[in-house]
């Protein structure tokens, strides 16, 4: 696997490739592995607690969710095929999702209006990798609820149908 210090992965929606070399290079290639469709997190509760459960996301406050080790996603997965559902956001806004060891990206995964009962988007979300391209121990994904004006909460559901490695 090629190593580049400025390596970036990309979300399915919104493309980001920043490299300092002559041409763009993503991590991979990776192949698909399925899991039985499974819920990873639900901030409303419904049996989920701790890192994967309540409370709802507060606008502007990033939060990390564990993925590896849950729902059959192994520790060495390089990316996960997720369905991201936002429930009853108080304010119009968006959700950004990125590997927990990287900085906040410019791209968003899902956009929504205030009070939307529930809206979902599929996303291929990369796991946090080290400089050698290996998945770090206890990889998590970071999520933030962004709004134009401060305040508000939104509930988040993460479902998984498979992973890549």
């Amino acid at each position: 696997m090629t190593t580049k210090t400025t390596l970036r992965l990309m979300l399915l929606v919104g493309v980001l490739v920043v490299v300092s070399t002559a041409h763009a290079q993503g991590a991979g290639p990776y192949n698909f592995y399925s899991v039985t469709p499974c819920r990873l997190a639900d901030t409303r509760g419904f049996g989920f607690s701790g890192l994967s459960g309540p409370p709802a996301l507060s606008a502007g406050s990033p939060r990390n969710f564990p993925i590896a080790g849950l729902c059959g996603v192994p520790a060495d997965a390089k990316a996960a095929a997720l369905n991201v559902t936002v429930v009853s956001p108080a304010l119009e806004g968006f959700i950004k999702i990125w590997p927990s060891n990287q900085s906040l990206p410019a791209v968003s995964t899902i956009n929504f209006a205030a009070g939307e009962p529930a809206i979902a988007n599929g996303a291929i979300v990369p796991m946090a990798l080290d400089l050698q391209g290996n998945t770090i121990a206890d990889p998590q994904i970071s999520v933030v609820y962004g709004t134009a004006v401060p305040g508000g909460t939104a509930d988040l559901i993460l479902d998984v149908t498979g992973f890549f490695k």
Partner: protein
Amino acid sequence: MRGVNSAGSPRKWVARGALLMVVASAAIASGGCQCQLFPQALAVDPALSALSDGDLLFEPGETVAVEPSWVKARVTRGGFLCTTNLVETGTAASLTGPPGADYTITDSAADYGIISGSKSCAAAGNCYAMAVSAAKRPLQHWDTIFTETLHGTVPRTKTWTLHVGDSFTDVPRSSPFYKKIETLLHNGITGGCTPTEYCPGQNPSRGEMAIFIARAIAGGDANLPSAGIVDGSAYNCTAGGISLFTDVAPTDPYCKHVHYLATQNVMLGCSPTSLCPSANVDRDEMAGFIAEAIVRPGGETAVPLAYGPDPVTGLSYSCDAGSPDTHFTDVSASDPFCKDVHYLWAKGIITGCAGDQYCPTVDLTREAMSEFLVNAFALKLYGPGTPIALPPPPVVNAPFFALAPCRVIDTRNPDLALAAGATRNVTVAGQCEIPLSAKAVSINVTVTQPAAAGNLVVFPAGIPPPATSTINYRAGQTRANNAIIQLGSNGDIQVFANQGAGTVHFIVDVNGYYE
């Protein structure tokens, strides 16, 4: 044709436009790689022989002919037609079942000759033969499986299921309801009344009938939700939950069934708010239940007062008192169930109790019930599409292949809206140039015209709906989402409408697959 490898290595890939031009010239040099075979039907013990009774069932002690049919891939959505004739032979192997019995393939070779449309090995005069025997029946519901491998223009492997008859000591092979009762058992509609008996002459109660009809509609008990909404009122059939029927407790075994039927406007109640669960069902009432189940979710008013000629049976009727035209002499146009009874008759579901009589006020028996359920819901004993599908093995290490976006299903055309609480099976492999060996698909799912808010759960065939969602929507909203979904063992996905009432249309477009 194959897609483009995600890693960028060139695969044989042709843009759709170019492909169509090749077809138009009728010079399909590589037609074989486009053509695919699908399992169509399975005939078992079709003829009397020295070793079998020819009653279309596999029974202990018999050696029966086993005759699969295959159909050549048809027109895909892109308009491509498989014009190549396929030459196939087959091998049967690994006949197995529960321990305690002997399973033997006595003829493991079959020949299909040239398959230009659909074809059974019987047409080529060479099929398989198999035998099963046991000193003691190992299970009440006794299924065996074997693997068929086709060798020829298009290689294919398929695991077929063979149900073993003689399930009930009180339903002999000579009973006119024997095969239908075996079919109910095989489809998980009802077991026996004891571990060895069916009790064919017993009268099922309204509560039991709710269970049987709901299972037949939903394709099994596991597909029935335990909570939902009927006409804006929520129900929850778990301890401490809510029942909308005064004489049904949330923990009653038929609670989720009778409420699910109500969501489909199949009304089994003896009044708007009561079920009378222990009352018997007379034949008139049964016709009402089944007719409403067929026209669901249209309800009683959707059963036509006059109908025909039916495109299949050619039968017609009129229960309009002004111009009556009825078949059964004991069900006149003034009978409140006239249209229900005659609708089932015109559809070829029932024939009556004797001659041109229906015996409308006679209580329904468990054996007579088998005719209504098997015929109304086209339940099958042998062949593809049997509801006992096995969960597919996990997809491992599958690279991505891109496709030109292509529509797999649009429930608006033909108009087959998905009812709230129902699950639709959609065969994906074999469509849109997705090979039968595909393991998962990258799709875009669109919902439109939902009658109520809800979500769709898209998941591989062979498992019950998981506790996840794929796309959420409000009433009347059109909206899309993308997903990567594993395929079931037959290259199929399922779409479950997690919705309180009414129907929803959906569209599945595919843009690539994993293989």
